[in-house]
């Protein structure tokens, strides 16, 4: 059964059509990877799924856990269990990182009809995860992402993901600009969340993260459409032949 299903999705940014009838289904518990050349629509796809304001969906449907969320507010999609790790996490001065995260965690718990986490429980869990993924504890008490290095920002995204425990996780270029230690930490976080139910969509330029996170499916995205879906063996072919061999003739 698929967790997330995208049917014939067409989307514009401004006047420009970027997604041109894209189909994609994420299976429960699987890791899907989207690869494609620059400008193919990879980031647009991730933004369309979470309801980003830049993206104007003109046709098609996004079905999440059986519900049509094509026109749903971004916060509702998030509360339902969709998570995007941003390519460039934004800095928010004055908003304490831990306070923000606790607000987000409790918003989700309230939405699910659960009791809020008390401060002690929350802090214990947050510190444990931070340690596991190599996020410096002092960053928890700083303003959200302000002055964080590239690796610290990505680790902070992984911390949020691990605290929020979403059903579907989209990772938009999580590996770009990371040194090898950061890449290992980030991958550790992702692998820890693989529980046979949760689905992942990894958007990447490079295959190097796939040395640490073993994918189930590779999709090639070109000119706004998925043109090829196959198993992990596709990566090798891609490395040898490049994207041009997948161009529609």
């Amino acid at each position, binding site marked *: 059964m698929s967790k997330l299903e995208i049917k014939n999705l067409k989307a514009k940014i401004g006047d420009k059509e970027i997604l041109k009838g894209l189909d994609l289904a994420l299976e429960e518990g699987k890791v899907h990877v989207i690869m494609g050349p620059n400008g193919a629509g990879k980031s647009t796809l991730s933004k369309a799924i*979470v309801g*980003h*304001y830049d993206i104007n969906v003109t046709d098609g449907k996004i079905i999440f856990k059986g519900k049509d969320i094509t026109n749903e*507010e*971004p*916060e509702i999609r*998030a*509360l339902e269990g969709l*998570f*995007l790790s*941003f390519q460039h*996490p*934004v800095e*928010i*001065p*004055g*908003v*304490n990182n831990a306070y*923000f995260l606790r*607000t*987000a965690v409790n*918003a*989700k718990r309230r*939405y699910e009809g659960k009791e809020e986490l008390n401060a002690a429980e929350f802090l214990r869990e947050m510190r444990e995860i931070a340690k596991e993924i190599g996020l410096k504890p002092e960053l928890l008490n700083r*303003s959200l992402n302000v002055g964080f290095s590239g690796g610290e920002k990505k680790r902070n995204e992984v911390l*949020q993901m691990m605290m*929020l425990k979403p059903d579907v996780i989209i990772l938009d270029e999580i590996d770009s600009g990371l040194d090898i230690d950061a890449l290992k930490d980030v991958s550790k976080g992702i692998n820890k969340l693989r529980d046979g139910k949760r689905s992942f969509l990894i958007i990447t330029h490079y295959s190097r993260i796939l040395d640490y996170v073993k994918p189930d499916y590779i999709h090639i995205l070109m000119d706004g459409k998925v043109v090829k879906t196959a198993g992990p063996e596709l990566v090798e072919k891609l490395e040898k032949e490049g994207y041009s061999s997948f161009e529609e003739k």
Partner: protein
Amino acid sequence: MAQEEVNKAISGEYKLGFEIDIEEDKVPPGLNEDIIRFISKKKNEPEWMTELRLKAYRKWLTMEEPHWAKLDYEPIDYQAISYYAAPKKGVDSLDEVDPKILEAYNKLGIPLEEQKQLAGVKVAVDAVVDSVSVKTTYQEELKKLGIIFCSISEAIRDYPELVKKYMFSVVPMNDNFFAALNSAVFTDGTFVYIPKGVRCPMELSTYFRINAINTGQFERTLIIADEGSYVSYNEGCSAPMRDENQLHAAVVELIALKDAEIKYSTIQNWYPGDEEGRGGIYNFVTKRGLCEGENSKISWTQVETGSSITWKYPSCILKGDNSVGEFYSVAITTLAQQADTGTKMIHIGKNTTSTIISKGISAMKGQNTYRGLVKFYSSAKGARNYSECDSLLIGDKCGAHTFPYLESKDSEGQIEHEATTTKISDEQLFYLRQRGISEEDAVSMIVHGFCKEVFNQLPMEYAVEARALLNLTLEGSVG
């Protein structure tokens, strides 16, 4: 789309815009010596006060309205304003306050019955409607400690020595155009005297309400903290929603003697006018504190959410050696509001220190200006100042401006100044929403984070009020 949502979010309805339906005694519009004599007589003032008022009026006539501030407004017709309005009932006897006024104050959340306490804490309140003080609570209890807490009109009659000594001593009657006007026509306000070595056991506060139409409010507040004493004083205010502008020109003087401390907090919520800039209060206020004695301290905290025009620079004159001045400010301009506000820290004594934390928030068509002066006299050896002026912009039609002036005649002094301007971006809001936080909560989270340092300075029960007021201003984004 997102921007419209945000605009809605930060222009929450003004909830205090009701009128109190009471009969008022009101003089016809216009200003001349007869009106001033009338006001003075109405308040049973001694001759010396009448003469001081007339002297101020004559000075005012020779002065010109200042226009150096970054404010744009229709000219004020001083002859079209009524300078005295008072509720007909309940003026003579404190026990016979018009129930409609009591009800109105309850609606504002300000209890005038002593048994009802604000947030479970005893707070003594002086309630001023238009030109008169209608009720002052806890007077008897405070009197046992020698604390005087009464309306300025009572103080002029009952404590003339203190008034003669200190009134006009910090803000001279010809200090500026609006202070001169206030000195001539001031109607009511609060007087506080804390005797030597007494720590005032409760928060003192005044709640100002403009009610009558076409009326100006000209209150005058005088607070004296004698040697080694401490007082925390708070003021709040509101006004009905009207299409015309109403003038509010207040003067506040604080005097802290040796080892005394005055903490003065303001939550200003005058009617701000509408989106087009129609109506709202013109708020031209002179507030100044004198740290007269050694080791004295004056701290101003203000949360400015209302008024269509704000012109206000609560200042400290640090005369006593080792005296301390502080200014913590949050000013929000939304709709078509304009604020030109800041402070002056005048260092005269040795080792005097001052801190300025100013947070300006602009949204919609709001224009927010910080204007501050830090001055070190050559006598101020070892003086230090730290200033931080931060602006937060929401949307692209608003503006933030910073004018820091520094004058130092003392080469040993230290001045540090930091300023930042940031904008709440769609990207920030989206980030928070993607984590399941609603847009309204996201805006509120960013704004509260920005104001935190200042809110932490407010007495607890007022910090709660300030946060609630900020949320009210931010209300309405979910649609």
